[in-house]
């Protein structure tokens, strides 16, 4: 280095090497020391932190959703079941590139942009880290296979079995039982903290009907488990588990068979049927037509399906007609009549002369009886309350109602549930309107006019009632004043359900019990009083019910009604697809209970039928009520009226002296047919 003369000095070089080795050893020791310090830092100083990180890596506490309670009808038929489906789920934390993954998935399986949208929406929600988020529900076998084959390209994607609601009866109970659908953000936010916790593993919540009313009972309690997962999110071991508590199984009063019968009896018509057991208040049938398939909502209804349901302004399938108010029309007459008897505004024998119209003293305006619009002409002649009911004479009730006054009508009809929601567990039912002076002043800022009372006394004008209310009032009438509040739930997990009634209602007190008998007799005549030589002396529903079924083994008390259509939405009127004249037709109503006037058997069923634009209460709504009552009494309860030792004449005793025989005489038939065609079907 210093010049060519330099010689190799082996000893000096050896010492130089040894010195360098010493330096190297020092460096080695220094580096090992640094390494040790680093390890001590990791393993001693930060031990707790890393130990919990390691547990956090592998241990995952996850919710175990409870099985939703099943819903049965009163006969034990399954109305809401849980079915296993396979969902495609995503653990977001495991997916590197969500967009690329979604793209790959959409090349493998059907993945609508809607699915992706909903998925991204779910991603934004509050959730447990490493929880799986559903991307698509109900994978087919083929799709499952395709995803499985490509599993290595899809980290974080898994196929998860899940139980979801299924409604075997399809649209039959869509409104009454309701449906479940995915919980949305608002619902989650509305929960208290502990309830939200309880829904940690739950995707669905009851949205309507029973599913919503009894969500708390049906849901159950969430379980928890601590699982050990590997790097790919696969569960390797289950370490701890708190089992979920399944939701309660509910048994309803509803009879699926009655639902079917009612639906079939309504046919293609829009309408509603509500049937109540007057002994318990149990709702035996609650049908709104048209229905919809509740199964569509369970796994997320497609936009196309949904818009089809909500844009149908005429059929409004999502709209529950059983709890929507309509003018009750003549179906209120027995109740007004009973009120008149009770409060002394008339008695069983008081007869008025019906010229076919009613006129207030000193007022020229005439309130016409429906018979004015018939070819034969108006008026019933001499009419007592009974005849006014079975012939549905308006004039009699104009007069009676006018004399009773709205205050009496309001307080008396209120006892039957008009204007209120008497139900124990149909909280979503509307209350309709039982008008009063206060109500009119409050809502319209107008005083009450006598003419308002006159309209109200035939169930028109300001009076509005839901089919459910009509069935309720009819059940109370069938009970002769004993109030039973309508309810859906009969039993929970097999144990009879005793609902708490927070607002008990007093029974309807009628001073003279014979007035009950009188009203029942009058309503029975609506159905059973045959044609005779006497002018306008048959029951309005005789033709459609008792005459149509001469084998009828029991008596039915009923009342028909035809409600004037008040308003039709402007956009419907302008629609070209619909024959607007159809929508102008009266709504057909019929209320009934049975068996009536039976010496040993109390009334078992009260029914209200509403047919939208059905025109004739007796001929259109009546047979529906008859079909439902037949099915309940004869098929479900299997009461054999014919073999019961009862004297049929005794049942007809009310008719003694008023041409009891049925008109088989051709000559009489001519007259009665003329009656029927020109009047009986026009108004009820």
């Amino acid at each position: 280095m210093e010049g060519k003369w330099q010689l190799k000095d082996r000893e000096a070089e050896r010492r130089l090497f040894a010195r360098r080795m010493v330096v190297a050893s020092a460096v080695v020791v220094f580096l090992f020391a640094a390494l040790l310090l680093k390890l001590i830092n990791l393993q001693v100083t930060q031990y707790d932190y890393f130990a919990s990180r390691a547990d956090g890596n592998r241990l995952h506490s996850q919710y175990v959703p409870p099985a939703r309670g099943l819903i049965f009808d009163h006969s034990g038929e399954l109305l809401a079941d849980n079915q296993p489906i396979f969902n495609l789920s995503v653990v977001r934390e495991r997916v590197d590139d969500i967009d690329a993954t979604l793209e790959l998935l959409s090349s493998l399986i059907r993945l609508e942009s809607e699915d992706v949208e909903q998925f991204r929406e779910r991603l934004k929600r509050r959730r447990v880290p490493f929880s799986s988020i559903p991307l698509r529900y109900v994978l087919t076998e083929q799709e499952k296979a395709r995803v499985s084959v490509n599993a290595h390209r899809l980290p974080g994607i898994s196929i998860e079995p899940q139980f979801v609601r299924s409604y075997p009866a399809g649209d039959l109970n869509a409104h009454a039982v309701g449906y479940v659908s995915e919980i949305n953000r608002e619902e989650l936010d509305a929960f208290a903290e502990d309830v939200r916790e309880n829904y940690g593993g739950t995707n669905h919540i009851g949205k309507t009907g029973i599913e919503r009313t009894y969500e708390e009972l049906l849901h159950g309690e969430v379980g928890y488990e601590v699982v050990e997962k590997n790097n790919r999110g696969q569960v390797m071991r289950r370490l701890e588990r708190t089992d979920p508590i399944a939701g309660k199984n509910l048994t309803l009063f509803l009879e699926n068979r009655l639902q079917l019968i009612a639906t079939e009896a309504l046919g293609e018509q829009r309408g509603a049927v509500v049937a109540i057991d007057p002994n318990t208040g149990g709702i035996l049938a609650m049908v709104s037509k048209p229905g919809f398939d509740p199964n569509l909502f369970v796994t997320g209804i497609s936009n196309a399906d949904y818009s089809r349901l909500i844009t149908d302004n005429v059929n409004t399938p999502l709209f529950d007609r059983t709890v929507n108010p309509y003018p009750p029309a003549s179906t209120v007459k027995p109740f007004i009549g009973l009120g008149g008897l009770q409060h002394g505004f008339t008695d069983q024998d008081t007869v008025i002369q019906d010229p076919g119209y009613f006129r207030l003293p000193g007022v020229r305006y005439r309130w016409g009886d429906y018979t004015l619009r018939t070819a034969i002409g108006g008026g019933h002649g001499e009419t007592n309350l009974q005849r006014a009911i079975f012939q549905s004479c308006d004039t009699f009730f104009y007069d009676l109602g006018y004399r009773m006054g709205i205050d009496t009508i309001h307080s008396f009809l209120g006892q039957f549930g008009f204007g209120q929601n008497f139900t124990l567990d149909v909280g979503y039912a509307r209350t309709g309107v039982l008008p009063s002076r206060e109500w009119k002043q409050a809502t319209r800022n107008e005083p009450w006019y006598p003419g308002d009372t006159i309209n109200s006394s035939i169930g028109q004008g300001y009076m509005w009632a839901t089919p459910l209310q009509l069935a309720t009032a009819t059940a109370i009438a069938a009970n002769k004043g004993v109030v039973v509040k309508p309810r859906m739930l009969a039993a929970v997990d097999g144990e009879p359900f005793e609902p708490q009634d927070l607002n008990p209602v007093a029974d309807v007190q009628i001073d003279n019990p014979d007035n009950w008998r009188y009203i029942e007799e009058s309503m029975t005549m609506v159905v059973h009083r045959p044609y005779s030589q006497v002018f306008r002396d048959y029951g309005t529903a005789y033709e459609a019910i008792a005459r149509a079924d001469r084998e009828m083994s029991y008596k039915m008390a009923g009342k028909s009604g035809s409600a004037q259509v008040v308003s039709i939405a402007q956009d419907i009127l302008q629609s070209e697809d619909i024959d607007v004249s159809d929508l102008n037709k009266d709504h057909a109503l019929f209320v009934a209970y049975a068996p009536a006037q039976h010496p040993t058997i109390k009334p078992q069923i009260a029914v209200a039928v509403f047919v939208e634009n059905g025109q004739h209460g007796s001929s259109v709504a009546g047979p529906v009520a008859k079909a439902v009552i037949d099915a309940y009494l004869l098929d479900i309860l299997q009461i054999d009226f014919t073999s019961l030792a009862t004297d049929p004449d005794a049942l007809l005793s009310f008719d003694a002296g008023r041409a009891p025989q049925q008109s088989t005489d051709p000559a009489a038939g001519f007259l009665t047919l003329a009656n029927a065609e020109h009047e009986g079907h026009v108004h009820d």
Partner: protein
Amino acid sequence: MKAPSNRDFVRQSNVSFSQPHRLRSFWQVVHVDPILLAGLLALCGFGLFVLNSATAGDTEVVTRQAGTMGIGLFVMCVVAQFDIQFYRRWAPTVYVVALSILGLVLVIGVEKNGAKSWLDLPGLPSFQPSELLKFIVPMLLAWYLASRALPPNLKHVFWAGVFTLFPAALIVLQNDMGTALMVTMSGIFVLLLAGLRWRFVFAGIAAAVIASPAWYLFLAQPHQKNRILTFFDPYRDPTGAGYNIIQSQIAIGSGGVYGKGYGNGAQSHLDFIPESNTDFILAVLAEEFGLIGVLVLITLYLFVIMRGARIALGASDMFGRLLAGSITLTFFLYLFVNMAMVSGLLPVIGLPLPLISRGGTAVVTLFIGFGLLMSIQTHSANKSPR
């Protein structure tokens, strides 16, 4: 320092002394250094033990690794049979042949794990010729420098640098930065031990410090930049580039002082540690055996290194000294880089943990190095210096 100087005296005096122990003469005859062998066997045993857990009891892998180690030990013994002067004579030839093989690899090499450094000749197991350069380069440099006056002058340093960087450049062309770095370092170790003047050393360090930003800005590949960024902040991409280091730190840290017990490493058994039986096996060890286990490993390594240093110091000539010292320091660098990388002290560099990580060529290469050490140890006593 007493014994070697003493032996030097003995050699220089050219007087024959009887060996103090019969046993020693036996090892001298079979050309095996029992102390180094004991350290290596202990390391191999420990390595197999850890590997058994890291592979979750995959006997096939463990058996294959044991077989590889057996082959390595055999190769080591074979290598040790040749006098170190034999290697010295053949060093230039071997170096030239090695360079041509490296050139060949560039043409017909096979790519594995991103590095086109594998030679897959029919009839032979595939291997990485570049691995062999880790001791061929120091061998050539030792040959070159030992016969020249030390400390090396500028010219010698220059040529030593050329001899080192040329094969390193070829290996870089194979896209194997890790090996290229190790080969370069093995050459630098020879220079350092040969007494490279401190001003060169500091100049070199200064040059490296100045050049590294330039390298980072203009030459570094994206994945290399990523590794460096990740080193400074693993959490900038916790599920991507930072995942390995985060998970291995969690494994090490959660092992604590005593470890979770053999086979109980949740991090490794649930596959949170990537490359758990190759580059990141230290994480498995640290998780299951804790700080104690790592200390045992470091002790074993230190034992082998000290023995290597002892052999280097006791070598009869400068060639043996430089070669033994470089092999020993390269071995240390190897294991240190791996341990430092797994524990987060250095950026991720793809190097296995010697004798613990699963591997084929790398293990055998290590044993060739140890064979050379044994050759230096067992032949130097018999031979008079040139």
